[in-house]
């Protein structure tokens, strides 16, 4: 811990550390989220650098609570830390109110922790953008949380390497009347568009929440079925 801030303004009014963090995010594996009328889907690339890696041990979609999950683009360990902080936030809220937390509330509280890392002495910003997907009393939500601490609600979005192309693709395909099954197909198609190599049930991760308020990470067998449907 040092007394002085590491993230300071440049003469142009930019916080370069945050820009550089966003660069780290832009190099990360693509993650896509789509919000449908009756649910939200998260789809993320899980390409491993070596065939020797145990694919099943890598989990890129983290469950934050029964009805909220998150994924990321950028530095894996930073996501691990933030998702654990998020889980604690949820439980703290739960202990106090014994009520299901709203996705917006969770996003805002987590964003506070992310922002602190851009201002407190001696620490660097988080090198991840996070996509939070959940279903609460208000309905389905998809929120993006950036290294700056800014958070945005999206109907559909992508982060990581293929973000730009994927978002262009999504802009054409998205419609507000989409049902969750359409959204899953669209998300997989979008990911497939910019995918390097062959897309398989084990080199991607798919998570879905429907109006039952239960987030489920799909097992490879189910992902296989969806991928086959795309053919």
């Amino acid at each position: 811990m040092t007394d002085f801030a590491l993230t300071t303004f440049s003469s142009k009014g930019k916080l370069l550390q945050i820009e550089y963090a966003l660069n780290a995010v832009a190099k990360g594996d693509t993650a896509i989220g789509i919000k449908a009328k009756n649910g939200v889907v998260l789809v993320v690339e899980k390409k491993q650098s070596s065939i020797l890696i145990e694919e099943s041990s890598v989990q890129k979609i983290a469950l934050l609570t029964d009805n909220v999950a998150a994924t990321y683009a950028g530095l894996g360990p930073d996501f691990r830390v933030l998702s654990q902080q998020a889980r604690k936030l949820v439980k703290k809220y739960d202990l106090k109110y014994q009520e299901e937390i709203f996705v917006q509330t969770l996003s805002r509280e987590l964003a506070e922790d992310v922002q602190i890392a851009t201002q407190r002495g001696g620490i660097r910003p988080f090198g991840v953008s996070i996509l939070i997907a959940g279903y609460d009393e208000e309905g389905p939500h998809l929120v993006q949380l950036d290294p700056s601490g800014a958070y945005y609600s999206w109907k559909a979005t992508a982060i990581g390497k293929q973000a730009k192309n994927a978002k262009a693709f999504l802009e054409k395909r998205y419609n507000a009347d989409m049902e969750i099954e359409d959204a899953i197909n669209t998300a997989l198609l979008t990911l497939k568009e910019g995918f390097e190599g062959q897309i398989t049930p084990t080199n991607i991760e798919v998570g879905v929440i429907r109006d039952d308020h239960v987030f489920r990470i799909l097992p490879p067998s189910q992902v296989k079925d969806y991928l086959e449907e795309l053919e």
Partner: protein
Amino acid sequence: MSGIFEYNGGSIVGMKGKNCIAMACDRRFGQQMSTITTNYQKVFKIQDNILLALSGLNSDIHTFYALMEKEINLYNLKENRKMKPTTFANLVASALYERRFGPFFVTPIVAGLENGKPILATYDSIGCKSDLDDFQVGGTGGNYIYGACEAFFKPDLSPEELEEVIGQSLVSGCDRDSLSGWGGVVYVLTEQKLTVKILKTKQT
């Protein structure tokens, strides 16, 4: 301080009716045998559909109420929505337990209407919550009020009947208890409105 809960005196009672709830309290603020004032408020409207009644040490009644007001105001601003009565009931329990080793000397009753459904909860001073189906009492006159409640109460009373029953129970109890009384206030909450009525008790 023998009987810190008895120092100021006072009684409260809460009841469930058909799509309505009622809360009643006495009006005495005393210091042991002396009566200081006869218009002390012990039932507070936390939100349009939530009432909080507090008995015990008056200083803590006021402080705890202020703390709950602050919590619900911040919640309204942060979450941009009203708090549900069941959520508030849980909040009271955790707020009390937070002071486990230096507690608020109060015994609260929370009553509210959630989507038309009556909610009633009571606690000990360190936050043990009980959800109840009929009625609950608190304060120095509590046990006397219990007797009257058991005799008069029926489930699913209408707002008018509930007002009568809770009023009579409070008055009987307070008339017996030397530390409670000097008037009573009855609150009846329905989906449409909150009515407040002032009752006379034995003026001693």
